[in-house]
């Protein structure tokens, strides 16, 4: 088996360009897509249209900023609608005219949210807004109360009154701020407890690692076809080396190559893009092992169905790109509505791997989120491997 791995590595020396491309391409994409599609700092983009333009609407925006989860962009209505409808942002917030007045009048102020679909972020924003407005209300009533109290003892002109109110308001706000972390974490919706760190870099880092390692796995296994064509395969097969060792040597080589690629991509995702790959190391390793087995088996199946490496080069990219799309490697499945497509994501290995990895890396789920997907991937692997051996056994050499 080692002999086979060794000779594969020797061959790799003079034929490494394709694998280098499988590694470099997604790394470039990762940076480009990650920064183009997201905002890069782990915050949720929140477009805000402030038509009230009042002291209190500004206070609300500041409150939202102080929460730390949102990257707030003030813009006009058109732009806000565009961003939401194009999915650049999940929610857009509109502060209507008369916002300040209703607060001053002690009424419930109305806020409008633009959404294209329900999402966890939407609910958490609702919570944050409620909390913020409540705080604004408290601050105002404390400031009012303080001024009313002071007025009994001091002579205040209108100007002094206004500046005093502002000062008290600020002071109260600062007091709130000291206690903010408690209030904030309570208002963010997620199952794991700490803050969800969803951003485009995380999506692309996981997605491209899964999608492009598959290329490496499948083409590394596909080297068998090259050997069959130039008949080296025959030479190896009439040697005393058993079929089992010949196959396992080739498969282990593919595993090594693909896993090395995953490792580099994860390292860069973690070190450079700040993706939280280490959130649940054991879980990540388990999913990637199952995925590796599944994909290498798929490679073997594809290599036994097609006849030449040329055919593989034509068929594999089409198959891999489309199944990676379905599996949610290129864009998050969260933005997909079609029931059919979501169901389809359950029949491609990438779908299961993506799901499990996102659950543990983004949504902080524990090992319970890993077992089922890993088991499904292993079973797919067994199925592929079994069919592959069946096919190559019956096929003419």
């Amino acid at each position, binding site marked *: 088996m080692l*002999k086979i791995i*060794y*000779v594969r590595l*020797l*061959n790799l020396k*003079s*034929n490494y360009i394709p694998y280098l491309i499988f590694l470099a391409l997604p790394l470039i994409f990762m940076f480009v897509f990650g920064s183009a599609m997201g905002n890069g700092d782990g915050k949720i983009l929140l477009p805000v249209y402030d038509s009230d333009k009042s002291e209190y609407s500004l206070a609300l925006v500041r409150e939202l900023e102080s929460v730390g989860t949102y990257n707030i962009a003030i813009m006009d209505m058109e732009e806000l609608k565009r961003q939401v409808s194009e999915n650049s942002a999940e929610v857009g917030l509109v502060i209507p005219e008369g916002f300040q007045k209703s607060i001053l009048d002690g009424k419930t102020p109305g806020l409008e949210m633009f959404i294209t679909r329900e999402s966890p972020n939407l609910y958490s924003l609702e919570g944050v807004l409620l909390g913020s407005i409540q705080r604004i209300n408290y601050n105002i009533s404390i400031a009012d109360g303080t001024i009313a109290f002071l007025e009994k003892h001091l002579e205040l002109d209108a100007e002094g009154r206004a500046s005093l109110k502002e000062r008290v308001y600020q002071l109260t706000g600062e007091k709130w701020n000291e206690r903010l972390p408690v209030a904030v974490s309570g208002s963010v919706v997620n199952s794991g407890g700490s803050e969800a760190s969803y951003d485009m870099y995380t999506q692309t880092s996981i997605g491209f690692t899964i999608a492009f390692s598959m290329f490496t796995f499948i083409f590394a296994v596909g080297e068998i076809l090259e050997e069959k064509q*130039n*008949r*080296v395969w*025959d*030479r*190896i*097969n*009439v*040697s*005393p*080396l058993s079929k089992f060792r010949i196959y396992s040597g080739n498969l282990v080589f593919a595993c090594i190559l693909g896993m090395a690629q995953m490792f580099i991509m994860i390292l860069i995702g973690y070190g450079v893009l700040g993706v939280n790959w280490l959130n649940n190391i054991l879980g990540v390793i388990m999913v990637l092992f199952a995925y590796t087995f599944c994909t290498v088996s798929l490679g073997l199946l594809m290599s036994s169905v097609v006849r030449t490496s040329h055919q593989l080069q034509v068929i594999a990219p089409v198959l891999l790109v489309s199944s990676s799309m379905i599996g949610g490697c290129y864009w998050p499945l969260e933005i997909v509505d079609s029931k059919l497509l979501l169901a389809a994501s359950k029949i491609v290995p990438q779908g299961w791997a993506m799901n499990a990895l996102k659950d543990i890396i983004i949504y902080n789920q524990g090992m319970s989120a890993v077992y089922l997907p890993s088991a499904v991937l292993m079973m797919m692997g067994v199925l592929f491997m079994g069919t592959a051996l069946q096919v190559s056994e019956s096929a*003419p*050499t």
Partner: protein
Amino acid sequence: MLIQASNLKKYYKKVKAVDDIDIEVREGEILGILGPNGAGKSTTISMLSSLIKPDGGKICFKGTDISKDPGVIRKTLGIVPQDVALYPDLSALENLKFFGRLYRLRGEELDGRIEEVLDLLGLNGRARDRIKHYSGGMKRRVNIGAALLHHPEILIMDEPTVGIDPQSRNHILETVKQLNSKGITIIYTSHYMEEVEFLCDRIYVMDHGRIIASGTKEELKALISKDETIEMQVDRADERFTAKLKGLIDVKHVDENGDRITIISNKNSGILSRIFEAALENGVNLKSIQIKVPTLEDVFLYLTGRGLRD
């Protein structure tokens, strides 16, 4: 008996690649399998070397059924595939090392064997060049070398000289003789009857998946000893002339190839004068005519009515 194969069959969808043949290989001989393209030579060899499973029949190596225990023959078999079966991107040295290791050779022993093989094939100078930069003849030699490292008892060579220059070809043929003189049993397939005639002790003639004749060169030629082969060159092809030849008493086969015509007829039948007569009748001029010593080519022609290289 080294190898005894009986009732071998291999059918692909439409083709009966090998159709119920018996083959025996005796220790120390050079056995030839002669046949045109598609005759089933490679398929036969693949079955004998345990590479593909026959659809029927049985192959015994020294009495052991190789379908039950392919290990016995694999350890001691060297195979030279019809195509150059080497890693093109690796050097000859790297290729030989790898194939040697498949037979558990290593270290100094492996280095010694590689040296020996490179010497035998006259490849010493360029062992570190990549195979893909070699000439056709050199590739062929490394292809043979890779089968010799483990000192096989049997060497199976599938058309090892296809597509190379005469010099390399002679070198290879000499090497085969030399290997055989060291006691290696050789199975040699070819569609060049000269090679088989030069090398082989016994010959199987294959066509369309069947063995149509077998025996020593002499035995095979005796098949046509009652016949003689007449070759002539004419100044122009003429249908009526060939039709006339076919109709002559004692003529068994007429093979026409442009201005060359080959006739097999009964020996000593005074056929020549009748050929001249026919030529005169049809206004055809004979540029040359001769009675040939029979070759295996003629045997094949006699057996199948076709030339080997049609």
